């Protein structure tokens, strides 16, 4: 959609936010595909998803070009300037989400060579939670809705809680049976990637808030990630 010549300034501003939405759509599809590939042990799907990360990088460059052009030729002020700057920042965040999703797809390829495990169930749930956060924040961006962005920003705690729960579960499995260590490590990284993707969604929420209100979110975000200090006592595990 970006190939079309847009003559007016308004048109250029609209085009850059459409590109951001489009880039977000590719990242959503990538993350969804990576989770599906993990759940259904579909290596072909994982391969396709790894490939589609290129499209995200391509769109990031398109957005950069659009933003530089607006900044150089239109010298935007006020909300137009915020729109241009946030488009750049949000596209960076989306690019990171794309990388994390690609990494999940790569791990799915490795995991699919092993025996099926029930452990992926919690991860699929966490992935879903993460996807719904990303969808909500991109919808908030499309609607310039600061309130919905705030809601996303606050809800990140749920992903962190799921992460803690999965972290403990995997730790317990590894202690019970050291043969599961290599597999569980991959799953741990998948969980960590999802948790990071959730954090990027909250970063986007901050940008959407800034775009809509012209001010930054003031309060400190609730933090639920306690795994830095989580350990499973050996007696409990054996």
């Amino acid at each position, binding site marked *: 959609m970006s190939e079309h010549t847009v003559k*007016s300034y*308004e048109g250029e501003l609209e085009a850059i936010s459409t590109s951001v*939405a489009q880039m977000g759509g590719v990242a959503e599809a990538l993350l969804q595909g990576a989770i599906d590939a993990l759940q259904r042990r579909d290596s072909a799907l994982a391969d396709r998803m790894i490939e589609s990360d290129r499209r995200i990088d391509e769109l990031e460059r398109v957005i950069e070009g659009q933003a530089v052009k607006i900044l150089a030729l239109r010298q935007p002020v006020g909300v137009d300037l915020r729109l241009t700057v946030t488009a750049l920042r949000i596209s960076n965040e989306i690019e990171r989400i794309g990388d994390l999703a690609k990494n999940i797809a790569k791990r799915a390829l490795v995991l699919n060579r092993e025996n099926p495990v029930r452990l992926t169930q919690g991860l699929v749930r966490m992935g879903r939670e993460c996807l719904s956060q990303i969808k909500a924040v991109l919808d908030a961006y499309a609607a310039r809705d600061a309130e919905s962005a705030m809601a996303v920003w606050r809800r990140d705690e749920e992903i962190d809680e799921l992460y803690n729960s999965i972290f403990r579960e995997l730790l317990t499995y590894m202690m019970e049976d050291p043969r599961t260590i290599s597999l569980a490590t991959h799953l741990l990284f998948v969980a960590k990637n999802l948790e990071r993707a959730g954090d990027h969604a909250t970063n986007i929420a901050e940008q959407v808030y800034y775009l809509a209100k012209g001010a930054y979110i003031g309060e400190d975000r609730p933090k639920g990630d306690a795994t830095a200090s989580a350990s499973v006592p050996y007696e409990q595990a054996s």
Partner: protein
Amino acid sequence: MTLWLALVLIALVALAAGAAGYALSRRRASPPAAAAAQAPQAGLAEITAVLQALPHATVLLDETGRVAAKNAAAAELTGAAVGKPFAASFRVPDLLAAIEHVRDGAESAEAAFTLPVPVERSIEARVAPVEVGGRRYQLAFLHDITAMVRVERMRADFVANASHELRTPLTSLSGFIETILGPARDDPDATGRFLEIMQAQAQRMRRLIDDLLSLSRIELNEHVRPAAKADLAGIARDVVDAAQPALNRAGIKAVIDVAEGARPVTGARDELLQIAQNLIDNAVKYGGEGGDIEVNIFPSADGAATALSVSDKGPGIAREHIPRLTERFYRVDDAMSRERGGTGLGLAIVKHILNRHRGRLEIESEPGRGSKFTVFIPVWQPGAA
């Protein structure tokens, strides 16, 4: 001199007004296609009327990717608004690629995709070129095949989950049958005892099957929002009345409190009944030892929903279990749940009913302090789908 000054002032004012006017007109200048959408092309009004009559979500896009016409189903599914770029509201890459393909001259293009959240929907899309009044457009037709996909998946899931959970009571049943036929053949006392255990196991299997069936039924309809009006307070009273024998047996009381301003909700009565039933059953099963159960009905903070909360004073639930309570067959304490006749599906059913109602479940609990389960259901609005 004063005349000169007045003239210069007038000229300045005129200039300033002109500049402001220029700035305004520049700011308001819409891109050409949006202007075209505001003053509809010949034929677009008729097309909109035709689209409106179609049962499936359909959008007509112009050459710049803006929505030229759409029907209500499309607005609901994709958030498309006339004059706005379609890609800004509906970001599915496969569909956008299909649209681009047709814009570049293809005869037709297809895309199949799923929307994973909030409720999974499967869509099959077909895009075709259309010419209206000498201009080229793309018509995207989105067919919702969620129900079909669900029926297929339901069969697979049912076999996988159910067989695992049903095997335990079945193993125990066949074990006792063997014992009765073999070593205990001539021992009427033992046989009587065994038959009682077998009866309990058979009841457990029946409960499981009932729950699995109702879960499948709800899932099948999950993407269709209920439209009826329901009264949560009446529902809570009915459930508590029906649970009275169990409450008496456990020696606890259930207190219902309806706050002022609690409005009726949009929902299917029998499904909301099942939510209240499952929550109150859980409170009796796992929190009953601590004392009475409180049922509160109150409006949500923003007034958009009415809430029903069930609080108990039982042992509470550790933090790490809370996010996973609604997973099927997830149990905090396997042995305790089985002993009290739990199937591991109660909260999964609650979650799916809430999904269908676009409602929300909040769980607050702390070990030693009891638990509080709160469901939020959107208030009833006349004409809401």
